[in-house]
């Protein structure tokens, strides 16, 4: 799986690359518009992550160049500007997703996964984690073959966990994933706990294993290790 990251802030670029490489993606990073154009003309990527504000050009033009090549590459825009216009024009010219800085790395990871999943599995669109199987299109979850009845948020939570398996997820990133950043959840983290407790209970009721670990004072980790 090849990913191209176009981000001019070196430190941020390093973090993203490091996080994505742990997912066994091959992640290349470029810092400028020119380098980006060169790369997309030379190689084929499964997903590109592009910052709109580049020092020598607009990320939107990278997307336009990609689309001109009739590329099937998935595109995620990351932008410092939370502007509706940028979002609309970005998605309008063929980007798949739009993420506003500052974002959580697990969030970006989940979005990359979702895009790659949608594009490249050739119809076999399925998420499997040991005994848990998810059919994202039907929003269906089974544990050991038993169908699992989840609420919308529990479902989103499970996908988020599996997308970031073996990673520590902060309560904040979970809250933001589920409710967006407009809800200040600082006083409502106990509510996430309830949600996770319910999800855990439902999985275990169907004979599934408990993969959710609590990381003291920090958040949770979904792991079978």
């Amino acid at each position, binding site marked *: 799986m090849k990913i191209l990251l176009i981000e001019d*802030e070196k*430190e*941020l670029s390093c*973090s*993203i690359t*490091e*996080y994505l490489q*742990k997912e066994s993606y091959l992640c290349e990073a470029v810092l400028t518009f020119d380098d980006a154009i060169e790369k997309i003309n030379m190689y084929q990527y499964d997903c590109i992550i592009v910052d709109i504000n580049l020092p020598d050009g607009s990320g939107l033009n990278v997307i336009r160049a990609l689309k001109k090549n009739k590329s099937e590459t998935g595109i995620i825009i990351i932008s*410092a500007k*939370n*502007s*509706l216009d940028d979002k609309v024009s970005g998605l309008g010219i063929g980007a798949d997703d739009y993420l506003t*800085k*500052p*974002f*959580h*790395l*697990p969030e970006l990871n989940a979005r990359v996964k979702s895009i790659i999943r949608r594009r490249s599995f050739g119809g076999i669109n399925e998420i499997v984690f040991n005994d848990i199987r998810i059919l994202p299109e039907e929003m269906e979850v089974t544990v050991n073959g038993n169908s699992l009845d989840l*609420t919308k*948020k529990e479902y989103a939570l499970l996908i988020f966990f599996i997308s970031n398996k073996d*990673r*520590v997820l*902060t309560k*904040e*990133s979970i809250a933001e994933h589920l*409710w*967006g*950043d*407009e*809800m*200040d959840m*600082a*006083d*409502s983290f106990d*509510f996430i706990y*309830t*949600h996770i407790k319910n999800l855990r209970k439902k999985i275990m009721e169907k004979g599934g294993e408990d993969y959710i670990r609590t*990381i*003291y*004072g*920090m*958040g949770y980790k979904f792991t079978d290790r």
Partner: protein
Amino acid sequence: MKLLTRTSRYYLLISVVVFVISGLIFFRLLHTIFEKQLDETLFEEKLLIEETINFSDSVPDFRSVFGHMIDITIVNTSHVKTEYIRDTLMYDRDLGSFAAFRHLFVENTSVKHKGYTINIYKPLSDSEKLITEIILIVVLVFIILLVLLVWANYFIARRVWIPFYRTISNLSHYEINQEKPLSLMKTDIYEFNLLNQALAKMSKKIQQDYINLKEFNENASHELLTPISVIKSKLELLIQGEDLDEQQLQLISSVFDATSRISKLNQGLLLISKIENNQFAQAEEVNMSQIIDITLEHFEEIIEHRKIVITKKYFHEVILNMNRTLAEILITNLISNAIRHNIASGNIEIILTADSFSVTNTGQHLKLTRPVCLNDSENRKAILIQWDLDSQSYKKLPIFTK
């Protein structure tokens, strides 16, 4: 109190005081003059009478000559010379009542060694009547003068102060976030020109400061985004480490919390600068009840978790021409605040009518009502702090989102 009223009032007060004092002095003066004249007449008469007595030694009948009361007695014994003049009250047969008289009393011995007394009484009423008439005329003249002066003063002042009132009106219509500078008309009065110049200079400076501050806010919040993103991403990488102990995790968690606080703050600042820059100017038809429903659905689980009972009352279908994003921010803020500052198993009442929207929640000690007025221009002012529906006036929102 208006400046004109105040000056007119002082003017009137001072005029009256001056008039009363000068009137009293005038009256006194007049009185003295008349008295002096009266006394002179009395002495002249006295001299005439004395001459007659010395000449004839008989009591002359002067009454018919001078036309007022004269009483003369002559005795054979001599008198010591006494003479005084005074005011006295006497019965006046002509009037049939007591009246004031000037009384000259003389006691003396004539050339032929006979004593005589002369009493001359001259009524004061004549001169008093004259004084009263003079005073009346003076008062009348004064009143006419006063009215004219006050009126003239009022109109002159009103004319003179016109540029001042125009400046005030310009100032009160001036808004700092408007692009155009404060325009003040030139007048031919030096002081007002000075004032206008000072005001123009000041407003220019304030506006410049305001723009600088706005730009600073905008730049700072934009510049802050990148380092915040870096910190967040590095922290997220850091916590993936396998060998972190509890204490280290606790430390990282604190840094995380602080970072997200900065991040939230920054988001708020960015929103404010966007609103200030009119980036939400695009208006469209927004169905309020729809937005409320979507927002409630968004918070469904939290509402359930806290066992909050929601009562919705939509009396009208409200469709407003406004920016959708701002409408969503507003409704989300109101509802999430109503949820956050609620008690467990509390309730929230949402009422939407043609011209108002209110979210009422139960709270610990106080009941918070957050009415938002939608259309009623009369009531709109009162609730401006929260929301203003004129598409150009979203600027009031920051106070609310803060």
